[in-house]
């Protein structure tokens, strides 16, 4: 028994060393200075969503231009820990720090004054003091060294819903994770996109199941829920909640039905993914960094990237549509760009059931 423990202990000591030898360090620079930095939020750098998308953009630019880069993972999910990581990045020589996620709002709010010489790109958020208790909500202030980026998720969702109905699907499902603003916008857009397509095609038998699971985790509950929908006739589910999507895909594989992915192109996660409702995270980070080095950093601004600037879209190359063609996609995309379609957002309606629909029947599952 003792020998066994000794062996186990020895292994525990050797394994990390072996890892060091493998050199998984992604930093090409020799000196300890990293010009470009990214601080991760709750997820990890490989969350197949937010952090990863942003990281890929940063990495692409850095490798092309041979600039040093590094990511920092905060010890915990608090503003203090985020600030520590930002401080670490600044001390590490960062000239520009990417902060993906609205959780960074208060941290960037403080950091923009603490480090006036450092530039920040915050995704899905705008710096504020984080005091939501206050009358009228938190105080927003953005300095010239911060570039805040939002995405028009409702347009991305709209495209997904439109394409699904145009492609002949009649019974759809929306399964969101937590009902955070971005997820809600995806859902609203999805419903309205389906409605728009149905009207255009002159049909009135579109049915949508609508549900927020309340987590971003894969679980047998989410899988069974999806399996139940598929069993009851749902043909395609828009899985909009991180790993919840993997449970939906698992159910879709069993039932031989379809899934619409979210945030990034998820076609390689499962053969059932017919398309993905994408936010062009890596492109916008890439563009932001490029602007910084070009001397045109759009600091002090908060922008919402929509169809006009290719901020959202569907990956048509990897999509598995039967009848929905590239021309159809280009046509509807052009309408979004031209602003011909008015899509309601989370700020317009507090609840999805308030959206007025004429030909689409939505069943809300609590």
């Amino acid at each position, binding site marked *: *028994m003792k020998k*066994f*423990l000794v062996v186990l202990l020895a292994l525990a000591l050797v*394994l*990390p060393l072996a*890892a060091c030898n*493998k050199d*998984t360090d992604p930093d090409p620079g020799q000196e300890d200075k990293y010009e470009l930095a990214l601080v991760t939020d709750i997820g*990890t750098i*490989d969350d*197949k969503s937010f952090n990863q998308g942003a990281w890929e953009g940063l990495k692409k630019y850095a490798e092309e231009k041979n600039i040093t880069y590094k990511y920092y993972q905060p010890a915990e999910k608090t503003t203090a820990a985020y600030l520590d990581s930002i401080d670490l990045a600044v001390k590490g020589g960062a000239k520009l720090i990417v902060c993906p996620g609205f959780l960074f709002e208060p941290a960037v709010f403080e950091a923009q004054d603490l480090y006036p010489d450092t530039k920040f790109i915050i995704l899905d958020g705008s710096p504020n003091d984080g005091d939501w208790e206050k009358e009228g909500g938190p105080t927003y202030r953005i300095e010239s060294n911060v570039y805040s980026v939002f995405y028009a998720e409702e347009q991305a969702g709209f495209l997904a819903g439109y394409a699904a109905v145009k492609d002949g699907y009649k019974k759809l499902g929306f399964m969101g994770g937590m009902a955070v603003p971005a997820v809600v916008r995806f859902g609203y857009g999805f419903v309205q996109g389906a409605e728009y397509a149905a009207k255009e095609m002159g049909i009135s038998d579109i049915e949508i*199941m609508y*549900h927020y699971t309340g987590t971003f*985790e*894969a*679980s*047998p*509950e*989410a*899988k*069974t*829920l999806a*399996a*139940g*929908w598929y*069993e*009851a006739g*749902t043909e395609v589910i828009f899985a909009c909640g991180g*790993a919840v999507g*993997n*449970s939906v*895909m*698992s159910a879709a*594989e*069993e039932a031989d039905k379809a899934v619409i992915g979210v945030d990034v192109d998820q076609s390689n*996660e*499962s053969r059932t993914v017919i398309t993905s409702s994408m936010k062009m995270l890596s492109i916008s980070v890439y563009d932001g960094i490029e602007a910084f080095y070009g001397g045109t950093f759009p600091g002090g601004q908060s922008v919402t990237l929509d169809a006009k600037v290719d901020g959202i879209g569907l990956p048509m190359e990897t999509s598995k549509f039967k009848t929905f063609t590239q021309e159809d996609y280009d046509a509807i995309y052009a309408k979004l760009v031209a602003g011909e379609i008015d899509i309601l957002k989370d700020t317009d309606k507090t609840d999805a059931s308030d959206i007025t629909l004429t030909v689409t029947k939505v*069943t809300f*599952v*609590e």
Partner: protein
Amino acid sequence: MSTVFFVMRQALTYSIPLLIVALGGMFSERSGVVNIALEGIMVFGAFTSILFINSVQDTMSGQLLLLLALLIAGLSGILISLLHAYASINMKANQVISGTAINMLTPAVAIYVARMLQNVQQINFNNTFRIPKVSVLGDIPGLGDVLFKDAYITTYLGILILIVSTIVLYRTRFGLRLRACGEHPHAADSVGINVYKIRYAGVMISGFLAGIGGLIFVIPTSTNFNATVAGYGFLALAVLIFGQWKPMRILYASLFFGLMKAIASTYSSIPFLLNLGIPSNFFKMVPFVATLIVLAFTSKKSQGPKAAGIPYDKSLR
């Protein structure tokens, strides 16, 4: 009618892992070692076996791969359970604490190793193990729909484990000794039974079963393994207590839990239940409320193994 069969089929995906893991817990507790490490062992078993599937799935697939993976899950479950056995049997440590330590340790190890090997903490796998329909048997109305369509061999394995466990526990010399060590280890020792050995065996069996339970839980649930089994190890403990440490009752308890879980998740596609307008949280509550009620009524007669949780000390005889 097909909806009923569908719900029952879904219920099995919850029931079978719960059944197997709870039976594992039964062997450990009836030998006198409380095992709340079931959750952690499940994670570890699922981790090693999914890692195995991930690395060989390009060259292998189907049932043979699943059987090999189950073996690996079981063996690694044994390995990790030995830590618990050593701490709680040899070192006479508090069994709850060593169990908790394992529950905290294994997800961390799974994430750490996965990221070391492939830089990503989720381990992907292709589910090639589902049997769409068993020939002949799948045509039986009713039973065929529930047991032999969209099935996994693990369902039958679970039933097999149940039968074997019942026989081992009640019809073999080892089973009798195991039960004796859980009830009155000093008496068992006095007639020449090595209590330490029997308890080791009990914990190792629970490690094996919890390990394969972890894999069985993960496969139909997701397309990757993310270092978690969503608290089903703890749920299996509840099943164990609900089932009063007896194999057949554990079966009923796990079927009940599974059915309630399935109804809670699928009710939105059953028009009858949807029209009742009861929120899903109500259905989610049912298994736990039922557990409380049943325990309240049966706790007087509740027959947990008497010596469970007490380290055996020869000198106290």
